[in-house]
């Protein structure tokens, strides 16, 4: 149904961002927590709008904005992620001297870009949403102005990000030349109808995959990830590790609907994705082994997780993919929250050495961080285990035996570096005193929510799976 109501979730976010921006310049108050609360109000409103139009299938702008159930579910996931990030930012911004009201506006703008991306089927609109997300991200990465590392992260992210978007645009041009349209259904139909080898369309698709591969951080295109994750303010890193991955895979789910049958073109695409998946899982986990900085470890771990997600994409297990994204949101933001909690004014404790004895000094932080790390490594009874299990099971079902073997071996490697942090927290005695003053109700609320999410999805995933199945069913069937 073509109705203005389809715009409400997006409108709520954009208006929120503009209101925050105007309040920042007109009120000029020193304590900016009120801006965070205003943003949270707008986020909650957007979430309410998303739930209200569930199952309605609203569209607007001649079908260019399409709120099917998958889009709505992903909007909810992204809104939740932004909400958690805002909650963990408030104290951090004051402690680390990043006290800008624009921070919240930029987060909301980034969210609006992501919502545009998940709720459109036109690749041009998706590209524009991606750019809204990217521009806000470049600014967010460099927001810790006093820290040289943050500036460095911003410039690296900007250069490689804009390089990737140039690839994306060039790929779009070729896809447009081949299919005469940028609408995803039209492109899918073109690939299904065209059984011969179409070099132009393949080149276009390849460039588009490279462009998204940069944003998602698959392995040949991952060079920026560790540096950007290390340099950016930590809540922003948490945001980067979840948001772009969710939207990237959302777009790829729509683009790879059923792989356009058995044609030669789709064979080539799927075998190259196979190689990327193997590279990403293996290299991501191996490179993480020699890191000592916790943020860098988490950066490489997020690369490896992008590889597991790609396995789900290859196996056409869309509900498994969305479930994995959902679990990943909780466990990753949770882990970053624990990292943020271990900080004091002007200093963040990021080196592994600083984690010695944390488990006994700060039992609540240590325990939750351990749960999140177990979940990232894929131990039962956490959500991470079930998510990996679903993905690998459906991959075996689809005949990707070798891919699954490599994936399981790679996640065995990952156990080493996740557990190393736990070992440092519990098995080593503290050598130096770590003073933290980040006790903050918001942080503990987020830790609790993430813990709840990880355990709920690990032990009783039924309800969530029903909703995800409903959402995935809204994809068009060819």
């Amino acid at each position, binding site marked *: 149904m073509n109705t203005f109501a389809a715009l409400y979730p997006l409108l709520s976010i*954009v208006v929120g961002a*503009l209101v925050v*921006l*105007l309040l920042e*310049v*007109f009120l000029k108050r020193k304590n900016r927590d009120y801006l965070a609360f205003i943003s949270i109000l707008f986020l909650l409103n957007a979430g309410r709008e998303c739930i209200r139009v569930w199952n309605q299938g609203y569209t607007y702008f001649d079908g260019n904005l399409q709120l099917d159930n998958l889009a709505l579910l992903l909007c909810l996931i992204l809104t939740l992620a932004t909400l958690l990030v805002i909650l963990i930012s408030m104290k951090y911004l004051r402690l680390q001297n990043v006290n800008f009201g624009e921070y919240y506006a930029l987060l909301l703008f980034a969210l609006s870009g992501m919502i545009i991306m998940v709720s459109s089927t036109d690749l041009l609109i998706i590209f524009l949403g991606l750019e809204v997300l990217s521009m806000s991200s470049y600014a967010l990465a460099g927001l810790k102005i006093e820290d040289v590392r943050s500036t460095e992260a911003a410039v690296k992210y900007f250069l490689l990000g804009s390089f990737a978007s140039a690839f994306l645009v060039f790929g779009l041009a070729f896809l447009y030349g081949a299919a005469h349209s940028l609408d995803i259904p039209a492109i899918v139909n073109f690939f299904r109808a065209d059984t011969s080898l179409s070099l132009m369309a393949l080149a276009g698709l390849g460039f588009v995959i490279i462009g998204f591969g940069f944003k998602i951080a698959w392995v040949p295109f991952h060079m920026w990830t560790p540096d950007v994750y290390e340099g950016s303010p930590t809540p922003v890193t948490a945001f980067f590790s979840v948001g772009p991955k969710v939207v990237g895979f959302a777009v790829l789910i729509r683009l790879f609907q059923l792989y356009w049958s058995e044609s030669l073109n789709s064979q080539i695409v799927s075998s190259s994705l196979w190689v990327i998946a193997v590279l990403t899982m293996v290299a991501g986990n191996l490179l993480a082994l020699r890191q000592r900085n916790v943020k860098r470890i988490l950066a490489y771990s997020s690369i490896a997780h992008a590889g597991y997600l790609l396995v789900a994409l290859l196996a056409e297990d869309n509900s498994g993919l969305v479930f994995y994204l959902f679990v990943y949101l909780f466990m990753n933001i949770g882990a970053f929250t624990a990292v943020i909690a271990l900080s004091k004014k002007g200093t963040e404790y990021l080196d592994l050495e600083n984690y010695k004895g944390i488990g006994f000094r700060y039992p609540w932080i240590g325990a939750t961080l351990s749960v999140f790390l177990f979940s990232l490594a894929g131990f039962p009874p956490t959500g991470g285990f079930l998510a990996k299990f679903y993905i690998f099971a459906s991959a075996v079902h689809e005949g990707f035996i070798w891919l699954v073997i490599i994936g399981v071996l790679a996640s065995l490697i990952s156990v080493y570096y996740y557990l190393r942090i736990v070992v440092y927290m519990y098995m080593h005695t503290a050598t130096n005193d770590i003073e933290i003053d980040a006790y903050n109700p918001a942080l503990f609320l987020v830790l609790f929510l993430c813990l709840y999410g990880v355990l709920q999805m690990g032990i009783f995933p039924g309800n969530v799976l029903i909703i995800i199945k409903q959402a995935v069913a809204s994809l068009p069937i060819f």
Partner: protein
Amino acid sequence: MTELFLVFLINGLLGVVLVVVNKITGPKRTNPIKETPYECGSPYLQDRIYPIPIKYYMVAFLFLVFDVEVVFFYPWALIFKKIGSPALIFMFAYIAILGIGFVYAWKKGAFQWEK
């Protein structure tokens, strides 16, 4: 067409070959005066480019953004009569968002020439 192409090819190759041969076989003698920037033969006036005050950059950035946004007015004006009032509403929304950006830059002091 082919002849034209050949002419371009031969001339281009000739140019490349001559430059390369010159680079390889020519003698390389250098002295301090040769290394200095060339300014029409007269002694040069300043030895480097001095940084330009930051306020010029601010105005340049803002001009860049707002100047290019106007590009959408032309296609809009062409089809405005066909679409009617929704087109007007959306364009006003667009201008409002641009205006908020402008007000933000203004209040932030981007246009203050003298601090």
